[in-house]
C-alpha cells in the first residue's frame, strides 16, 4: 500500500431518513496521519455520515474506500475489522470495573481466565506509545471525565483502530483536559493514526486540524480544504451560511427591584455531602447574574434549591416570599422558569411529542388545561406556534422529542420556559454542546428576556458567555460564593483565580 492512498475516501454518500435528506452527495477524504475536522451545525449530518463510516447506518448510494479498498459495512463489527473505531460522546463504560476490564470487554481474548496483570502491562505499553495515561487497575467510577475518555480511546486503539472518529470529544471536558486531549490527538496522528474530529468549537478546529470539511444541511460547503488562512469568522459563515456575530449586542441594563434573594443557604448533594455553604446572593429584574465556576462546585444544587427540586436550609425569597423547601409546582406558579443542565434526562420526556413536552409546565392553565381534560387541539396549536417562532426543526409537533438534535431539543425547552413570561429564569448551561448558530440564537433570546424585565440567573462554565451576557458575575467554588463582581470591571484572571478557590475580594 503506498502512503499516498487516503485512509478513508467517501464519495457521493447519500443517506435519507423519512422526510429528510441527511447526507446529500457528501464527499470526504481523510489523509493518513491527518487530523480532519468535521464541522457543521446540529442536524447538519455530521453524526449521520460518521455513523455510516462506523457501520451503524447504510447509505442509499455512494461508495466508501478504506485504505483504497472498497468496503460495505453491515455492522460496526465490519468497520472495526477494517480498523475504524469511534469514540462516542457518551461513554460506554462499566463504572464498577477496572480500566483493563473495560478495555477487554467483548474481546475474544482472554477467553476464560482473566490474567489481568498481563493485560494491565499490555495496556500500559499502549498508553506509553500515545501518551494516554490512566492507571489500568483503577475502577471507572474513580476516574475523571477526561480519564474516562482516554479509556474510550484506548479501547478503540486496543481493537486495532487506525482510523479514529471522535464525536465531539471536547464537549464534556474542562479546559485543561481539552489541552491534554489535543496533545494526545497530535501524538496519535504523528504515529500514523488518522483522526476525524467532530466539533462545534471553532477555535479548536483552528488550533488542531490539518484539514477540514464543513457540512450544512446535509451538503458539503467546504471539502477537505487546508487550514491556511482560515479564520473563525470564515468557518462560522461556512457552517451557518451567514455571518455570525461573535459578541451579541447588549443593551445597557435597567435593573429593577430584587426578585430572587438567597440568604445563608446550605444544601447537601446526592451523596449527602455539603454542596452549598452559606450562599447569599440576589438577582434583580432586568438583570443577568452569571455564576462562574468549574463544573461540580455546587451549581446544580444551586439551581435545584431555587426551583424546589432540592431541600436546603436558610432562606430563599422570590418577590419577598419564602420559597425554600416547597414542592416544584410552587416555584413554577410563582413564575420561576428553569432551563435544566441535563436536557435529556431532566428537561424533556423523550418518547412524548413536541406538543406534550411544550405544555409540560403549563398544562393545568387555560385554555390548554381545561379542568380534568387537556385540549390537545389548543396544545398542538400552541406547540406549532412555538415551533415556528423559535425555528424548531422537526417534521411535525407530533414528533417525539427524543428524535430531535441537541440544538432543537434545547430550543423546545427554551421556547417552553420563555413563553411562560417568567419572573425569574434559572438557566443552567443553556448553550452547552450547541453550535455557533444556535448559541447566538439562544444568547439573543436570553438578552431579550432580560430586556423584558426577567431576572436571570445564568449558570455557565463558558467564561466568554458569562462575560458577554452577565451584568454581574458571582464565582462559586466548593459550594461557596467566592465573590461577586461587576461584569464590566471584571478581569478574567481574577475570575479564574476565584474559581480555583482563592478569595480576591468580597
Amino acid at each position, binding site marked *: 500500500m503506498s502512503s499516498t492512498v487516503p485512509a478513508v475516501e467517501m464519495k457521493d454518500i447519500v443517506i435519507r431518513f*423519512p422526510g429528510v435528506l441527511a447526507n446529500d452527495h457528501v464527499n470526504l477524504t481523510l489523509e493518513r496521519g491527518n487530523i480532519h475536522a468535521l464541522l457543521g451545525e446540529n442536524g447538519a449530518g455530521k453524526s449521520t455520515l460518521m455513523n455510516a463510516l462506523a457501520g451503524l447506518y447504510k447509505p442509499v448510494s455512494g461508495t466508501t474506500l478504506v485504505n483504497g479498498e472498497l468496503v460495505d459495512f453491515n455492522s460496526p463489527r465490519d468497520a472495526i475489522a477494517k480498523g475504524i473505531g469511534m469514540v462516542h460522546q457518551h461513554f460506554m463504560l462499566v463504572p464498577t470495573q477496572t480500566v483493563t476490564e473495560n478495555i477487554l470487554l467483548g474481546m475474544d481474548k482472554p477467553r476464560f481466565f482473566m490474567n489481568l496483570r498481563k493485560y494491565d502491562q499490555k495496556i500500559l505499553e499502549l498508553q506509553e506509545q500515545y501518551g494516554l495515561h490512566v492507571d489500568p487497575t483503577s475502577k471507572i467510577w474513580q476516574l475523571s471525565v477526561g480519564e474516562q475518555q482516554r479509556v474510550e480511546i484506548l479501547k478503540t486503539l486496543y481493537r486495532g483502530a487506525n482510523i479514529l472518529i471522535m464525536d465531539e470529544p471536547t464537549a464534556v471536558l474542562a479546559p485543561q483536559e481539552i489541552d491534554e486531549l489535543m496533545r494526545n490527538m497530535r501524538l496519535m496522528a504523528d504515529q500514523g493514526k488518522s483522526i476525524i474530529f467532530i466539533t462545534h468549537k471553532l477555535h479548536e478546529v483552528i488550533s488542531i486540524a490539518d484539514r477540514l470539511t464543513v457540512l450544512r444541511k446535509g451538503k458539503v460547503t467546504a471539502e477537505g480544504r487546508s487550514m491556511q488562512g482560515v479564520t473563525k469568522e470564515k468557518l462560522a459563515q461556512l457552517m451557518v451560511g451567514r455571518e455570525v456575530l461573535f459578541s451579541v449586542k447588549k443593551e445597557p441594563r435597567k435593573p429593577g427591584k430584587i426578585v430572587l434573594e438567597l440568604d445563608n443557604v446550605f444544601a447537601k448533594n446526592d451523596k449527602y455531602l455539603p454542596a452549598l455553604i452559606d450562599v447569599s446572593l440576589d438577582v434583580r429584574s432586568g438583570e443577568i447574574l452569571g455564576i462562574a465556576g468549574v463544573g461540580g462546585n455546587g451549581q446544580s444544587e444551586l439551581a435545584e434549591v431555587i426551583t424546589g427540586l432540592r431541600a436546603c436550609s436558610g432562606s430563599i425569597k422570590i418577590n419577598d416570599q419564602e420559597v425554600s423547601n416547597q414542592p416544584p409546582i410552587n416555584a413554577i406558579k410563582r413564575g420561576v422558569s428553569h432551563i435544566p443542565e441535563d436536557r435529556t434526562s431532566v428537561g424533556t420526556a423523550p418518547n*412524548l411529542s413536541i406538543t406534550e413536552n411544550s*405544555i409540560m409546565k403549563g398544562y393545568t392553565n387555560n385554555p390548554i388545561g381545561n379542568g380534568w381534560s387537556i385540549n390537545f387541539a389548543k396544545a398542538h396549536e400552541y406547540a406549532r406556534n412555538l415551533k415556528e417562532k423559535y425555528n424548531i426543526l422537526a417534521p411535525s409537533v407530533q414528533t417525539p422529542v427524543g428524535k430531535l438534535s441537541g440544538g432543537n431539543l434545547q430550543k423546545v425547552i427554551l421556547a417552553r420556559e420563555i413563553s411562560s413570561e417568567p419572573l425569574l429564569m434559572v438557566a443552567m448551561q443553556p448553550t452547552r454542546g450547541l453550535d455557533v448558530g444556535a448559541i447566538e440564537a439562544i444568547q439573543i433570546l436570553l438578552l431579550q428576556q432580560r430586556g423584558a424585565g426577567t431576572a436571570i440567573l445564568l449558570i455557565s462554565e463558558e467564561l466568554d458567555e458569562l462575560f458577554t451576557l452577565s451584568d454581574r458575575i458571582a464565582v462559586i467554588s466548593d459550594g461557596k460564593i467566592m465573590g461577586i463582581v461587576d461584569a464590566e470591571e471584571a478581569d478574567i484572571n481574577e475570575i479564574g483565580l476565584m474559581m480555583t478557590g482563592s478569595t480576591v475580594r468580597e
Partner: protein
Amino acid sequence: MGLRVKVEKRVDVPKWLPAVTAIGAVILAFIIAGLIFKFIGGKPLVALRFFYQAVFGSWAAFSDTMVKATPLIIVGLACAVAFKMRLWNIGAEGQFYAGAFGASLVVLIPIVPMNSPKIVVIGLMILMGMLFGAIWGFIPGFLKAKYNVNEIITTLMLNYIAILWNNFWIFDKWSDAGFQMTPTFDRVAWLPRLADYAKEYKIFSGITLHMGVLFGIVAAFVVWWIFKYSRWGYEIKLIGDNPKAARYAGVNIVRNIILVMTFSGALAGLAGMSEIGGVVHRLQESISPGYGFTGIIVAWLAKLNPFMIIIVSILFGGLIVAGREIQPSGLSFLLQGIILFILISSDVLLRYKIRIVRTEEEAV
C-alpha cells in the same frame, strides 16, 4: 450469484405495521400448532374447524367466549393503567379476589335486605367490589410512594393474602354445609344475563353473556379517554416516560403513584365483582383461573391500548373456551404458548427491516 437476507434497523414504523404483524403472528401460530397436530397424528383442519365451532360457531359459543373474555378485559385495563406509569402491578389477581370478597359482603352480611330493588343490590356490589380492590391497590401504592417499597414484591405477596383471606371466610364462617363455598346468592344479586330475556326474545335462550361485558367496554372507553385526553393521563404518561422530567414539571409523583395503584386495584376489583355477580353467583375457592396474571399478558400484547385489550381478551377468552372443548385440553395451552411466543418475537419486525438481496450487489 445468490441471495442473502439482510437485517436493517427501521428508522420509522408505518402505522399499519403493528396490526399486520400481530395478525400474521396469530395466523403463523395456528399454522405451527396445526403442524404439531399433524405430527402427533391429529387432523389439523378438523381440529381447527372444531376450534372455530367451539369459539365462534354459534351465538351460544361466542357468548361463552365473551364471558371468559370479560374478566380479562377489565383486568387487562387495570394492568394497563399501572403499566403506563411503569408501576409494575402484578397484584391484579389479589385485587380481583378482594373485589369479589367486597361484592360478596353485600349479600353475605347482608348490607341491604335481599328484597331490595336489583339496582340497589347490584350498585352496592359494584361499589364494594371496586372499593375492596382499590384498598388492595392502595396498600402497595402507599408503600411505594412514601417509603419506596418495591411494588412488584408487595403486589405479589398481597395476592396470596387476598386468596387466603377469602379461604378463611368460605372454609369457616360462610361455608355452605361444610363445602368450601358460600351458599348461592339470591337472584337479586345476579348480574342481568341475556338468557334472562329468553321469554321475550327466543334468540337469547341459553346465552350466558352477562352485564359484566358492558363494564369492560365502558371501562375501556374511560381508560382510553384518560390516556388520550385527560390531565391525569398526561401526568401518567409523563411520569412513565421520565419521572425526573415530571418532577421538574411540578407533577406530584407521590400522589399519582397512590392514585394510579388505587385506580388499577379498583378496576381489578370490578372484574372480581363481575365474575361473582355474572358467573359464579357465590364466593368460593379459585373463582379466578389466573385472570389477574393473564391480564398482565393481555395488557402487554395489546401494547396498553384499551381497545386492543378487548380484542386480545376475546382471543384469550376463545382459547380458554377451546381448552374445555378440545381433548387433550393441554392443546389449548400449547396454542396459547405459541401465540405468545410468536407475538412477542414479531416485535423484532417493528424494529428491523428484513430484506432479501442478491449477493452480487453486495460484492461490488
